[in-house]
């Protein structure tokens, strides 16, 4: 019976069996899929309360599985849809599963151990039956799996879905997932809207989202009965309109909004704070992601909060737990951002000598802080601020520095090779530092680093350790952010040249936000742990993970 159902299943099951046969270790994703398929088989036969304990177990693997830091919540939920091949019952989302877990708690019929034993027995039976089968078979590979030749690739890697926008199946799954992230009462209009892309996307970047600032996500939300906390709605709007911009500012705003959410939170009856609060945060994070893709620093902050929440002991009372969490968040902001900035300024000031001409690009809160501190310590230097369209963030940096009394020069990025012979050092901020030593920062940074290298001018990158990210990227195409293309339209002398760019078929406007700089162009990275070469980022990540 079990076998015949298994043979009806599609290819991924074959892939897993082959992996087992070839003695390769199953990845966590494979194991999750296996468990879900087992569950599916039983769905037709067994009762509902049998399903519940298994789902509570399924909740744990998604929480525990290693997630890319920028997509904390999407992966496990999106794996669930790929399994719904034959079943008619929609896969219960983790939120909905909570309700079933409650039911299970009230009337357990079979103990967990017995169910586990049953499942293990069935797995053994399947394995034995599949022993001889080396079927290559019609591998109806799920839309997201990469390599077609499954003989070579039994372990299937998944692409994060935020860089698969050109794949319609992925978009459908995202829409479904957002639908499901709703309150346990399953009311249809309380869902998180899906933001639609705007305008023609340049083909090289068609796998990324491109939103219009004139159509914020909040217009599609129903008031007042929205499932999203108002502080989060406000934050999302601030992100999408660019009111809160800059890596540190966004993370701090996020943490403050989460503090507000925690203050207003009450644990529903028969629920545990440690699990329910995490589930409550998931739709918020999806919403914020829709407003503006999460940054690496925000991803790390969210990971930290989720870890803290799930570490709350069960017997802790609501008020205590909430106070503890609020303290944790304050501590995090203080340590990782405020104190880190002080430590970095201390190290950086050693590198600024009298008579220096320092070049900065755009507006980095950290670099501005360093320059102001150095000026207060009576170092004699002058600053050249380089700026670029369309954001023109350099003007903000210029304003802050001039207010302090620092002598500044302002140029646009096209003049950087003209002005570099005068420069003695280049200070750059970073959005994230990737695990292979590449620096992800505002678009234009890698250009400045390249020209500085050609002129033999030392390039110093300043970055706190909480922005270190375990991702690896060697080019700016794979994962990036596309801003509103209408920003590139400018009106000069009463004429707006690109006004009707959408009407021109072959014209595409590209407004990139980030780029990556290779470590050969960076001479020194100043972090709160000290001064390290760019290639030592993985060592720091290792040390940090040991600490955490």
């Amino acid at each position, binding site marked *: 019976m079990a076998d015949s159902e298994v043979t009806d299943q599609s290819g991924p099951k074959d892939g897993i069996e082959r992996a087992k046969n070839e003695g390769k270790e199953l990845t966590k994703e494979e194991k999750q899929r296996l468990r879900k398929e087992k569950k599916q088989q039983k769905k037709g036969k067994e009762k509902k309360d049998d399903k519940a304990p298994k789902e509570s177990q399924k909740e744990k693997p998604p929480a525990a599985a290693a997630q890319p830091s920028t997509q904390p919540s999407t992966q496990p939920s999106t794996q669930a849809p790929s399994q719904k091949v034959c079943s008619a019952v929609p896969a219960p989302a983790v939120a909905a599963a909570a309700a079933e877990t409650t039911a299970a708690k009230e009337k357990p019929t079979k103990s967990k151990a017995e169910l586990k034993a049953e499942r293990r027995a069935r797995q053994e039976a399947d394995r034995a039956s599949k022993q001889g089968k080396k079927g290559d078979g019609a591998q109806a590979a799920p839309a997201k799996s990469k390599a077609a030749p499954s003989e070579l690739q039994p372990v299937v890697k998944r692409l994060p879905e935020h860089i698969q926008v050109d794949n319609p199946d992925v978009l459908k799954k995202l829409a479904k997932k957002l639908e499901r992230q709703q309150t346990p009462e399953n009311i249809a209009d309380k869902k998180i809207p899906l933001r639609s892309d705007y305008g023609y996307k340049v083909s090289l970047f068609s796998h990324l989202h491109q939103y219009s600032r004139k159509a914020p996500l909040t217009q599609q939300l129903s008031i007042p009965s929205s499932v999203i906390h108002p502080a989060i709605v406000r934050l999302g709007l601030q992100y999408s309109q660019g009111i809160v911009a800059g890596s540190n500012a966004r993370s701090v705003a996020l943490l403050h909004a989460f503090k507000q959410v925690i203050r207003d939170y009450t644990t529903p009856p028969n629920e545990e704070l440690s699990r329910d609060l995490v589930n409550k945060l998931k739709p918020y994070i999806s919403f914020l992601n829709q407003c503006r893709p999460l940054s690496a620093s925000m991803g790390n902050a969210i990971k930290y909060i989720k870890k803290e929440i799930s570490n709350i002991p069960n017997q802790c009372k609501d008020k205590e737990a909430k106070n503890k969490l609020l303290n944790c968040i304050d501590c995090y902001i203080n340590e990782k951002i405020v104190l880190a900035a002080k430590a970095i300024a201390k190290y950086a000031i050693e*590198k600024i*000598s009298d008579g220096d001409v320092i070049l900065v690009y755009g507006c980095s809160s950290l670099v501005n802080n360093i320059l102001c501190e150095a000026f207060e310590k009576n170092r004699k230097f002058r600053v050249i601020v380089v700026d670029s369209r369309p954001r023109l963030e350099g003007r903000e940096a210029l304003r802050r520095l001039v207010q302090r009394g620092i002598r500044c020069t302002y140029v646009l990025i096209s003049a950087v090779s003209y002005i570099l012979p005068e420069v003695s*050092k280049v200070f750059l901020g970073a959005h994230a530092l990737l695990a292979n030593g590449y620096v992800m920062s505002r678009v234009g940074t890698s250009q400045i680093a390249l020209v500085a290298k050609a002129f033999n001018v*030392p390039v*110093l990158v300043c970055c706190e350790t909480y922005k270190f990210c375990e991702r690896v990227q060697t080019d700016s195409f794979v994962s990036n952010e596309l801003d509103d293309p209408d920003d590139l339209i400018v009106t000069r002398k009463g004429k707006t040249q690109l006004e009707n760019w959408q009407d021109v078929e072959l014209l595409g406007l590209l407004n990139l936000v980030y780029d990556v700089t290779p470590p050969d162009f960076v*001479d*020194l990275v100043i972090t709160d*742990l*000290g*001064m*390290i*070469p760019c*290639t*030592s980022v993985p*060592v*720091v990540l290792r*040390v940090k993970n040991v600490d955490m």
Partner: protein
Amino acid sequence: MTEQELVDYFKAQMLKDPDMASAVAAIRTLLEFLKRDQGETILGLRESLTAATDCLTGVDSSVAVSSGGELFLRFISLTSLEHQDLSRCKKVMEERGELFLEKISMSRAKVAKLCHTFIKDGAKILTHSYSRVVLRVLEKAAAEKKRFTVYVTESQPDAAGLQMAEELRKLDVPVTVVLDAAVGYVLEKVDLVIVGAEGVVESGGIINKIGTYQMALCSKAHNKPFYVVAESFKFVRLYPLNQQDVPDKFKYKADTLKSVQNLSEEHPRIDYTPPSLITLLFTDLGVLTPSAVSDELIKLYL
């Protein structure tokens, strides 16, 4: 132990064994200082050790003395000092100090063992100035019955290269002394370049006798491998961005620093070679690429 006693002891150690690195002599002195110290608290002890290290850098301003001193202090305090009795704590620290000294006296032999295999039979080697570690390496290679010739730069202003040539002749190694200016000329004939280091900095670059940077640039242009041999106590927590960024206290001799007013008239004694020009570093911690030096430093110092 007063400052004068400290300096005298240090100088005596240097005279006793001229083959010993100045950093090792400094560490011996610090150990003696520790044994004779009359301090009442651990913190006081640490402070007086730091002061002693500064005093020794006043005598011999090489990078290795200050890095060796700092590492010594780190090593002896890297143990649990939770004993009630101060004298017991001091005993533990003294034992650790002896252990450290033993380890670093073996370091040259370890480096030689690692490096001599890179010298092939019939190789032509270029080296700079007088380095005892390079001498050890070449000794080991000669003992392994390898045939090689050596070109040594004269290395002004102290003509230390001539001393190196003398020592090599004693080993029956064919050696030629070349002018510092002839490095570019001679590089097409050599197969590899081996130099010592006074200090290894965090970026993986080295601080060595003036002229090393030029040699490294030329060997990069000729695509010849540039090897550095250094013991691990020479790893220092500096991160120079360019030549100007190296602190003045290392660039000039200690007595010059004290006596001369205008340092811009003086010639610097050392220069900084960036990691991009170095192929490999041979240390007692193993054979490292320049980017691995930072990892090792993080392990040593943090």
